């Protein structure tokens, strides 16, 4: 389905002579976050995935793996950027439970719209609003842990991001702050809403980064999480990352991730690795 959509899109672009996106400064689209939206590693940014300027379109694809003590999350997906205004994304998550040898699969369709501003050039931050619609492939585990809805859930977020040129001793610095309304338990992998709480939580998600050069960025992220299930506490997520952005075609991010307790398994920490490629 996704592949057909991409083909169709490529055909449209070829037919109308739309310009491929290379019109943004290196690194300014960021990378791809765990749910497929353009952002940092675990939180979305206000930037659109891909290098499209307001006259261009862009297509990108990504693959991410987070390997913590008792679990492994593998994600792949793609995003389309329309004129630096709209981002349409898709992500497929596969959450592997090392102990049980079983897996949970979830699809996420995302839409993000840039409301105002430009990450680099406006005094005010770039501001966007987005939606992530999440669909679990199988309801068994979500049901078992006490989720209220084990089929699908929808997250809504508003996010502001800003790059300050030369802000820290001449080095460029970036911050991003998002507010997300969500019912998703552990991204939605454990369903949406729970026996303890079935209403939306407002969670803050933040990234800060310093660009050591045009190609290297160093940063930290924090993501508040809801806590809806009585069977186990859900904790906030954090990471420390280094990103390598050699050109406008590819980038890679390596991080130390601290995902707290997950489904009763204590303090899950490990390595996060992600690659995004920009095809168009």
């Amino acid at each position, binding site marked *: 389905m996704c592949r057909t959509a991409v083909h169709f899109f490529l055909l449209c672009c070829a037919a109308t002579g739309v310009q491929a996106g*290379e019109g943004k400064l290196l690194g300014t689209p960021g990378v791809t976050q765990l749910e497929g939206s353009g952002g940092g590693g675990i939180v979305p940014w206000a930037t659109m995935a891909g290098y499209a*300027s307001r006259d261009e379109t862009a297509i990108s694809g990504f693959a991410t793996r987070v390997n913590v003590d008792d679990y492994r999350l593998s994600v792949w997906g793609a995003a389309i950027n329309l004129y630096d205004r709209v981002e349409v994304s898709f992500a497929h998550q596969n959450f592997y439970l090392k102990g049980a040898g079983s897996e949970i699969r979830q699809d996420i369709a995302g839409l993000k719209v840039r409301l105002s501003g430009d990450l680099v050039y406006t005094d005010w931050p770039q501001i966007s609003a987005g939606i992530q619609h999440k669909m679990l492939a199988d309801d068994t585990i979500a049901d078992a842990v006490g989720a209220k809805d084990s089929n699908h859930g929808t997250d809504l977020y508003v996010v502001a991001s800003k790059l300050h*040129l030369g802000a*820290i001793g001449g080095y460029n610095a970036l911050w991003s702050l998002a507010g997300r309304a969500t019912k998703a338990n552990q991204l939605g992998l454990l369903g949406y809403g729970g026996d303890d709480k079935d209403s939306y939580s407002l969670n803050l998600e*933040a990234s800060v980064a310093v660009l050591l050069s045009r190609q290297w960025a160093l940063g*930290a992220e924090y993501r508040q999480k809801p806590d809806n299930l009585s069977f186990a506490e859900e904790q906030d997520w954090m990471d420390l990352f280094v990103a390598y952005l050699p050109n406008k075609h590819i980038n890679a991010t390596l991080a130390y991730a601290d995902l707290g307790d997950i489904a009763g398994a204590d303090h899950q920490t490990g390595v996060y690795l992600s690659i995004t490629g920009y095809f168009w």
Partner: protein
Amino acid sequence: MMTRNAPAIQAYNSLSILRVMLTGLIGIMLTACAHQPATPSLYDSLGQKTGIENIVSRLIYEIGDDPTIRPYFEDSDLDRFHEKLSEQICEVSGGPCTYSGDSMVDVHTRMNVNEADFNRLVDLLIAAMDHQKIPHPTQNRLLSILAPMRGDIIYR
């Protein structure tokens, strides 16, 4: 008892390290975000008058090499461009110069420079500064002064 508590302490420790790092980063950023006025040190870091002229010469070379940007300059007086842009950079970086060229709006009107081509020129300027061995932080300081001019230049 010990073994039960060890992971908790570890968790607590790495949590507080992350917190301290986050708070530190945000703190540094908040104090550094305020726009700094151009200081003579930027002019010095760029290599003063000669250094700036060399950067602009190299920029013109880069422009000549670039199929996207070159056409904009097809009918331009490059000597004048070199003189005026050098003067402008000298002035905004805190050097002893007074820009004598036309306003950014007047100069770039009817060129219809789009967003991508603006960033392309920024890339060429970065390439020119790289070539002249201008340190990364110095490059960013100059870019942060030029960036606010974008509104006067694009889509006119």
